């Protein structure tokens, strides 16, 4: 059951990757990369149940935070044109 769910999540990641590659403009690409990252979190949790290793339940917490921070930094950079100004 978990193998089927994991393969279906990989299919949705490939569908979103089309928008990340050919999407017009940089905002579409950043949004598609954020969506791919949040789907990867669930894929990592399901991989923990497929391989039955408890290591895979610590990585998604870190990966969710990294994805969130990366998206916020990219949004700030695209809005202001610079990251830190004083």
């Amino acid at each position, binding site marked *: *059951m978990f193998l089927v*769910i994991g393969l*279906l*999540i990989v299919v*949705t990641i490939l*569908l*979103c990757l*089309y*928008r990340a590659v050919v999407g*017009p*403009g940089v*905002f*579409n690409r*950043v*949004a*598609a990369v*954020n*969506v791919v990252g*949040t*789907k990867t*979190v*669930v894929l990592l*949790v*399901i991989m923990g*149940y497929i391989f039955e290793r*408890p290591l895979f*339940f*610590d990585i*998604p*917490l870190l990966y*969710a*935070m990294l*994805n*969130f921070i990366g*998206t*916020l930094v*990219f*949004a*700030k950079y*695209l*809005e202001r044109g610079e990251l830190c100004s004083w």
Partner: protein
Amino acid sequence: MLLVDVIVAILLTSGMFFMFVGAIGLLRLPDFYTRLHATGKCDTLGEGLIIVGLIIYHLFHYPGTPLVTVKLLFLIIFIFIANPTAIHAIVKAAYRRGLKPWKWGEGRR
């Protein structure tokens, strides 16, 4: 034990349905704002449903390690807070940069 498996299968299938709806909306809708309107809510709900199903599965099949349940609960709380915030940040940045919304009669962008 069979009833628990049926409940987990229903939760995982509904979560996969919402994630597919979000992905198809990201592909098919004509504009940046409508694409994020489709995918910002569907992905959050779909991932929440899948992780709730995994929490129930873990409670009944691996009762020896309850700490993993707490980790998954932290993960679902963080996703429900952080994912709409990230989508809102991108949409606000695009609106401040002057990206025009889509109207009737225009082509796909």
